[in-house]
C-alpha cells in the first residue's frame, strides 16, 4: 500500500491481500464473488471521484453486506 501511494498511483483501493487483491479465499465462492462485485463497484465510484493526489480507499469485508442476506 505504501508503495502504490509513494510511486504516485492516484486512485488506490485496498482489496483482499497482496496475494489475492481481488478475492478472499476464506470466503465461500458466492460470498467471494459478492466481495469482488463490491470491490469493482467501489472502484467505479472512485473513478467518478475527482482527486488530485494519491488517495487510498478500502473495501472491508462485511461492509455494505447485501440486504438480501447470505
Amino acid at each position, binding site marked *: *500500500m*505504501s*508503495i502504490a501511494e*509513494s510511486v504516485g498511483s492516484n486512485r488506490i483501493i485496498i482489496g483482499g*491481500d*497482496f*496475494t489475492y487483491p481481488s478475492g478472499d479465499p476464506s470466503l465461500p465462492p458466492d460470498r467471494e464473488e459478492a466481495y469482488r462485485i463490491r470491490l469493482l463497484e467501489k472502484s467505479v465510484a472512485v473513478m467518478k471521484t475527482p482527486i488530485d493526489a494519491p488517495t487510498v480507499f478500502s473495501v472491508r469485508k462485511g461492509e455494505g453486506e447485501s440486504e438480501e442476506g447470505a
Partner: protein
Amino acid sequence: MSMKLTRRYYPVREVEEGDKCSYNDGLLTVNYDELIEVAKPHCKNISKLWFEVYRPGENARIIHVLDTIQPMIKVETPLDWGGGEYPGILNYPYTVGSGVSNLLDGFSVMQCSALPWDESSASSGLLYPRDAIIQTTGFYKNYTPFADTINLILNFEVYDDKSASEYDNDIRKSSMAIAEHLAGLTVGKKAAREEVFDNTPVEGLPGVALVWMCQNQGVYANTLLYGEPIDDIVPTLLEPNEMLDGAVVGGNLAWPTFKIPTWIHVNGPIIMELYKRHGVDLNFRGVILARSHQPSNWHKDRCAQLIAKIADQIDCQGLIIQWEGGGNAAIDGMLTAQNAERRGIKASLLTFEFGGKDGTEGQLLVDDVAEADAIVTTGSWERPVYLEAVEKVYGGTTLRLDRESGGFFPEGTSAVDFRTNVHMYMGGNQSGYSRITAHAY
C-alpha cells in the same frame, strides 16, 4: 546481560585425500568413504554424494550452490549442559554463545545440487533454488569470501518423487554432520590463534544493536532459529555470540543474490565490525532477529514496532538494520528505521540499489521513508553481469537458467551474460561482506 565465547581457529592450508580423516598443523586429510559413512544416517532421500575440492587461485566457477557451512565444533559448554554448535540441527537445542568453539579457518563445506525443477513446493513459482554461481576470478569474485577459502564441495543427487522438504532436510543434516566431523578433528589440538568475544558493557558508550531480518517463506526459502523455521516469530533478542555459534542457520536457497549462507550467519560481517568497536566506540547490546517479508501491512507494522520497542528496552541509542531479500523485505527494513527514529533511536541501514543499466534509469530504491537518511549502498543488482569463461567448473557441469521461459543450459565453463546479478551468490551483498559498491559519478 552479556556472553563470553572463545573461538579457537585452526587454519586449513591444504586438503589431501588419505586413509582416514585427520587434521595436523594446517593439513586436513579427508577420506571420502569415512565422510559418506558420517553422512549416511541423513541420506534417505539422497541417491548419490561425491566430493570435490576447490582451492584459492583456481580460475574456476562453482555452480548449483545451495548453503555454505563454517565447520565448527563446540568443545566447552557452560555448566556442561551439553548441546553444541548449530543447536537444533543435529545437536540438542541448548542455548549457545559461551564456552569454547573450535573452527576450521579458511575452509568451508559447500553444498551443490541441481535440485529437481518440477518439484512442487510451498508456493509454486516462488520457491525453487535458482542456479547460484560463484566466480573465483575477476571482478565478481569480490561478492563472496569463497574464492579465497578452500571449499570442500558436497555434490548431491536426489531420488525422484520425494518432497522438497525431504531433500532440504537431508542435504542440511548430512552436510552439517560432515562439517562437524571435520571440525571434530581439531579436538585436543593446539589452535593457531584464539579470539574472545565478550560484549560486557563498558560505561559511557552508546548502545547499538544489529537488526537482522531474514527470509522465511517456505521450504527452500527458510531461516532456522535453534532448529525451527522463523515463520511467525516475533522479533527476538539474541546475544551476538548466539549468532557466532550457529543459533541461526540459513535454509534460503531461492534467490542466489539475496540469500545469506550459514557461513555468513556465523561470521557476520557487521557483527564482527560491531565487536571490533565494542568497548571502544560503542556497546554491542545484541542482535534483534526478525522475519523479513512480513505478509501484510498489519504484520509489517506489528513487527517494526516490536523491533523498535526491543531496541528501546535494551537501551540502544543506535540500530543497524540489515535484511535478506528484495522489495518486500526492503519495506520492512525501512518501516523499522522509521519506527526507531521516531523513538529517538538513530538508525543506519544497508541495501542494494536498482537504477537500471547505469544508475540513471528509474529509481534507486524500491521503497524508502523520510527518516532513512543514513543508507549505505551494497551496489546495484541491476547492472549486467559478464562472466568470462573459466577453466574449471565445480558443483555441476551445465548451468540451469530461465526456468520460466523454457530453460537455457549453457556449458558450466562458458562465458555467460546476465541482465542482473540475480544468479551470483551473495551478489546483493546484504550482509555487507563485499567491498563492491555503487560509486556515484
